[in-house]
């Protein structure tokens, strides 16, 4: 695995996530001084950060970090747990994600901007892409031998602004809902070897 630290934090989204938005915001606003909040920035009550919507989720998966890292680097494995992923084109360093958007597929051309073995991965949409997004996976050991805490951050500019954001949320296709479901499918796959379904027919 390559170490791509030089590409780290190219945009506000990731920098803010790393520092903790709440802390930053509070340092900049006058008024009674609050101690820095330990919560991740994406749990802040504000809705947007410099035009970016910030969301994410942590799921504990009972599997070693390197195994989870490998799942994210393997397009065939990704297709198993990212249900909306139609295909991955391009190269491993510049993957183009073809996503089923509900009204036909859309393409997001990205660069792999971070890849640290057993620790983290991040992709960022290239300049001029239709959809501005940065996604980061962080892996750390869970306490008490519970496996790995897998944290996914997504910072993106919602198409059609906030209205588009809420419309997508209502249809359950916003990045938050999708991201949460993808992490849970990955968990099922690694912990049980299969993805749960209530269907009792193979072709539905």
């Amino acid at each position, binding site marked *: 695995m390559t170490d791509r630290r030089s590409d780290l934090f190219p945009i506000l989204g990731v920098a803010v996530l790393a520092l903790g938005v709440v802390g930053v915001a509070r340092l900049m606003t006058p008024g009674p001084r609050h101690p820095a909040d330990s919560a991740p920035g994406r749990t802040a009550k504000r809705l947007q950060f410099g035009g970016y919507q910030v969301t994410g989720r942590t799921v*504990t998966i*009972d599997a070693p970090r390197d195994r989870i890292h490998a799942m994210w680097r393997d397009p065939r494995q990704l297709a198993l747990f990212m249900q909306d992923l139609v295909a991955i084109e391009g190269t491993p360093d510049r993957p183009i994600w073809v996503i089923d958007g509900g009204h036909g597929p859309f393409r997001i051309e990205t660069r792999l901007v971070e890849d640290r073995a057993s620790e983290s991965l991040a992709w960022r949409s290239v300049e001029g892409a239709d959809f501005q997004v940065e996604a980061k996976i962080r892996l750390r050991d869970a306490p008490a031998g*519970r496996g790995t805490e897998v944290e996914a951050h997504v910072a993106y500019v919602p198409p059609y602004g906030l209205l588009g954001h809420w419309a997508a949320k209502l249809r*359950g296709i916003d990045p938050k*809902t999708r991201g*949460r*479901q993808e992490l*849970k*499918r990955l*968990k*099922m796959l690694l*912990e*049980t*070897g*299969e*993805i*749960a*379904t*209530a*269907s*009792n*027919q*193979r072709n539905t």
Partner: protein
Amino acid sequence: MRALTWHGKHDVRMDTVPDPQIVNPRDAIIEVTSTAICGSDLHLYDAVIPGLQGGDILGHEFMGRVVETGPKSTLKKGQRVVVPFTISCGSCFFCKATLFSACDNANPVETQEASELLYGHAVGGLFGYSHMTGGYPGGQAEYVRVPYSDVGPIVVPDGVPDEDVLFLSDILPTGWMAAENCDILPGDSVAVWGCGPVGLFAVQSALLMGAGRVIAIDHHPNRLALARGLGADVIDYTQTHVLEALMEMTGGMGPDAVIDAVGMESHGMAPDNLLDTAKQKVGIGADRAHALRMALMAVRKGGRVSIPGVYGGMADKFPLGALMEKGLQVRSGQTHVQRYGSRLLDMIMEGKIDTTFLISHRLSLEEAPRGYRNFADNQNEWTKVVLTP
């Protein structure tokens, strides 16, 4: 195949539906030989549990013969198995802690959203129940797809009648866990609200665990007689002031532990219950929690409260003050069936537990709609219905 399907409040029918197939590697297909109607099926029948869809196959108490296995199933064709109503992966944090009904992986991700919103966390998967718990097709059918068949099903020796072991699927371990949640010490007094199947098995279990006295509370004469037959003292709440009687029967202390085996559709004419009933009828997700309120009032200071009865939403006028000021401990949950299977099977084989006393009616699967109607309308005589395809 033929299956009992839900179409709305008080509307269940026998339908012909496609046979189930092996979908995932750990699946098995079971040909059902016996299945039962459960008290919690009545919550579905009465449409007070949200998240059912027209055409859903009901039933979560079933057993049968293995007819097909996926490549990762450990079952063998021809084996007889009882299937736990809780679907559990066996390998997540919760399953490893034997909290099988809290399994993180059995409820498909799409159906985890509702309970994550309603309860703060996604609940596990159950057969033949709400889509909040996965919407898995149930066991009141000729065949069932059983996921994680290497973890759940309890293999039963040939020669043991179905009726002796069928209730390992739910109500027997549910009654057992209800009593276990009371942390019974020798000589303890335990009061049980509700002499339905779970309440009766809780009575039997509490006595086996060393309770000095078990007091069962109901209003159906036949169900009270069954409780008395197991060795319980009984109170008919239509004849007696329950709280006063429990105090007098326990030397003025109150029972050491109480069990609410009634759940969200409690009967009775108490004012709080009438209000709850009205709210449930207009469909705002309120639970009728009269039995639970009584139990919290009755239990002694520092006592234990066990809630096997099913609740789905909110209750108000909950005696939170009694809970805190008396220093009560509350334990609840869907049953961790897989935790108890082999131990309870042994106790049945040794003759320590009888399960067949409960069965009042035996019908064919085709007669299931009649079984539902009577079980709902005549709870005094219809204590348990077993269906055979």
